[in-house]
């Protein structure tokens, strides 16, 4: 399966040229771009590991792309996402967030456990199959 988190997951994986244009769009809007990586794709895994701080003062997308390539060298077997933060009053949160790197092997997806409870109620638990292994040993 293909995990469809992020703004562009239904499109074919973006090329670096396409990513560069999105980064420049973010920078031109005054947003700080941030790189994060994980090997736990649970939909409610909010805090991916940060690749340094958000890049508040970079004016050229090339600088961000250089960091992305550095991050890929180390964590290329994991998910990497690029997020842009808008610090304006009334938003102060993420404005755009999309996956820029996926594990090279097949994404095995999620197990859905059902625990039957009273009144036909069911308690659901979603677990990534890969999460059975320790962090860092899940792909590749």
């Amino acid at each position, binding site marked *: *399966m293909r*995990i*469809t*988190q992020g*703004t*562009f*997951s*239904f*499109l*074919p994986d*973006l090329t670096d040229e*396409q990513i560069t*244009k*999105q980064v420049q*769009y973010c920078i031109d809007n005054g947003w700080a771009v941030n790189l994060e990586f994980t090997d736990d*794709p*649970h*939909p*409610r895994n*909010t805090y991916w590991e940060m690749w340094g701080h958000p890049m508040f003062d970079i004016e050229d997308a090339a600088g961000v792309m250089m960091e992305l390539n550095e991050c890929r060298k180390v964590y290329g077997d994991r998910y990497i996402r690029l*997020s*842009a933060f808008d610090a304006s*009053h*009334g*938003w*102060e*949160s*993420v*404005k*755009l*967030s*999309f996956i820029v790197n996926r594990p090279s092997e097949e994404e095995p*997806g*999620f*197990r*859905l456990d059902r625990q039957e409870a009273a009144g*036909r*109620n*069911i308690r*659901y638990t*979603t677990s*990534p199959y890969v999460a059975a292994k320790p962090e860092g040993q899940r792909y590749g």
Partner: protein
Amino acid sequence: MDTEAKTVTGKDRYKSGVMEYKKMGYWEPDYEPKDTDVICCFRVIPQDGVDPVEASAAVAGESSTATWTVVWTDRLTAAEKYRAKCYRVDPVPGAEGQYFAYIAYDLDLFEPGSIANLTASIIGNVFGFKPLKGLRLEDMRLPTAYVKTFNGPATGIVVERERLDKFGRPLLGATVKPKLGLSGRNYGRVVYEALKGGLDFTKDDENINSQPFMHWRERFLYCMEAVNKAQAATGEVKGTYLNVTAATMEDMYERAEFAKELGSVIVMIDLVIGYTAIQSMANWARKNDMVLHLHRAGHSTYTRQKTHGVSFRVIAKWMRLAGVDHIHAGTVVGKLEGDPATTKGYYDICREEFNPQKLENGLFFDQNWASLNKLMPVASGGIHAGQMHQLLDLLGEDVVLQFGGGTIGHPMGIAAGATANRVALEAMILARNEGRDIVNEGPDILKAAAKSCQPLQQALDTWKDVTFNYASTDTPDFVPTATAA
């Protein structure tokens, strides 16, 4: 138009009998509204022979302290403060016999934090007043002091996006169809297919409550099976608006509690439940970390015609105060009423921190929202993937686009319909961010995206350029004119 009418003062003011409203203190052309006043703009259509100023003063009177005759008990009160004051009457451009009346109300006339109280004054008796042929509440300026007595949207656009982990694009939804008759089990099938195919939300329709063909508990249980299964199939957070609208507050709370117990991220109510019930549900949603969707069922009975009723922009303002998180606000291009300029005004009311006066969008006043959360507008009704560039251009990215028929009616099935919409949307966002002119290049962008997505190609072939081109009834009365810089 008798703009020279003077308020009678002293002993003469309180002589028993009938006196014209414009002489009782409800017409004060020199009055300068205070920062804390609530201001209304009404469209007043007097009966033939009735002076517009007198008619407007009567509206001020009947929506505040007046009755049809002079009463001595006024003198026991600070009556001058409590009288609403009409301070300006303008002819409506291009509409003979119609007038815009501006009326200021002192803040002490209203109970803090109560839409029911506000509306009981402003749209209480006065809309049935005989000397008027018609009356329409066009807009309201809500002072910051009053706005701050409301909690506003329980969740707001930003927090909703954070909870769903979805940024940078409109959210996608679909209303389950047919809206009546499906069993719970069949209903959940539609939810699962649509969410798995790529939608973020599915939605109960406004009149899906608990009917003989489907009990509400049945629907909730099957829908949550569908939501959880779709989450596991995609790795994305998914939701379905469980409509908790019911006959009584007790029923609604029971249904909402059950939705919470099942782990739903969102519940839904209809506008017809009434302002007090809406505020109660907003409080409940705030307490329980639930997104609250509002379907504006019934609004067109009083918002659509310009000659009588309440503009939807006013309803949108009341709903932002009342505290819902989603509100249906029009599609422009779809099957339901929606002039582009007027609809833009509604969207601005929902989403901006400050609305400057924009007569061309029907916004008569500056409106400061004093950091109340933003309200997510929902575009629903007769839209399809082939319109994605227009929708994005007209409505922006903080909106829920709901393709009901445009998902479920796809020739290859519901999941394919959902995928078509999602691919069309993502391709359009990508292109817009790259700086492309999506309005003109939109059809080409869709065609190119369809090359790697057969369901999109099929959607484009099926609906081609289906549009609903009818004249709007609710259009702005002012057109922008060029001015020297």
